[in-house]
């Protein structure tokens, strides 16, 4: 089993330039996903996903990167808007906000399936208590 390998590649090594470009793009996509997780986006919390299918071209990687940049900018904007509109949400940090949103998702899914949604609302009570205090 190969345990470690260091390869030095010069500009002239045409055969590996394509690999390096894709590798750089994959790293940038990974960094964007980390930032989305950091910003509290509920779809990127502790996620582990394949970035590509086998043999995906450089342009597809680029598309994926552009797409994630839009998602990140959009998410930041939405969070800012919501906080402007509901300043009490500033009491939740990004991760708590993300958990609150997840809690809502779970609650909504249970509402459609369960006759007693009140029991499921425990998922978000703790966050609401944080934001609203005891006067719920």
């Amino acid at each position, binding site marked *: *089993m*190969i345990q470690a390998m*260091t390869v030095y590649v010069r500009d002239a090594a045409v055969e590996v330039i394509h690999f390096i470009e894709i590798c750089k793009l994959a790293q940038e996509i990974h960094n964007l996903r980390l930032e989305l997780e*950091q910003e509290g986006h509920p779809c990127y919390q502790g*996620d582990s996903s394949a*970035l590509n299918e086998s043999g995906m071209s450089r342009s597809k990687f680029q598309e994926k990167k552009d797409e994630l940049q839009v998602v990140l900018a959009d998410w930041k904007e939405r969070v800012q808007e919501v906080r402007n509109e509901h300043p009490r949400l500033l009491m939740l940090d990004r991760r708590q906000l993300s958990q609150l949103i997840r809690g809502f998702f779970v609650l909504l899914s249970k509402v459609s399936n369960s006759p007693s949604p009140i029991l499921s609302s425990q998922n978000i009570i703790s966050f609401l208590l944080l934001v609203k205090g005891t006067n719920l």
Partner: protein
Amino acid sequence: LIVVGNTIPLTSAAPALQELEGLFGGLKSWQLEIFHVIHEAHDVIEFFREQHYEFDERSRMVTQEVQGYRFGSELVNYTIAVKDVIVQFLSLDRIEAETHWQVILTTFCKNIGQLLPVERKELDFKLKMIENVQLNIQEIRTYFSLRSSSGISIPFILQLMEQGVYQSQLQLHPNGQGMKNQPSLFPSFPPSHFNIQNLLFFPKNFGFRIVLEQGAHKGYLLRFWSR
């Protein structure tokens, strides 16, 4: 030695033999065959001289790489098995010039005697191993060369990785964040230098962590670690 002409008086044969044995550090006559074998194994000595302190670390990696490949596995095992004897010969490089030759010879033979089997059959096997390493030294050099990585060419690996899948794992994942490349074992087209040996060496289930660094001279350093 007490030698008169071409003959030795019978009475002095026993002490002469004892003196001779002492001079050769207690080596048995059949163990002296090592000098003949070593004389023919100059490439092996040169190989260990080049490897220096890196041999042990590299041999651990190479041993794992050639697992399941009988010929390669035997060669690597032979190379590891003869190392201690060859290193004794390399120690002669470091002997100080003013040391008396008798001291050198006796000390050296004593050391080498401790490493060589006394039993004829075992000794012959050890000497055969050295001969075998000498005979296949080019193959062994390839195994131990980190640049060629046991016959897997870099373009071949890169092609597998290029067609592989990048797995991105985020910070809150139970195993922490990281990005790995799971190489494709079925490249869409084999490179021109492809040979079946590449696949024999290639582990079936592994992924690479990759770090891409902008190096000097507008090049890149790619560092890979297997998981």
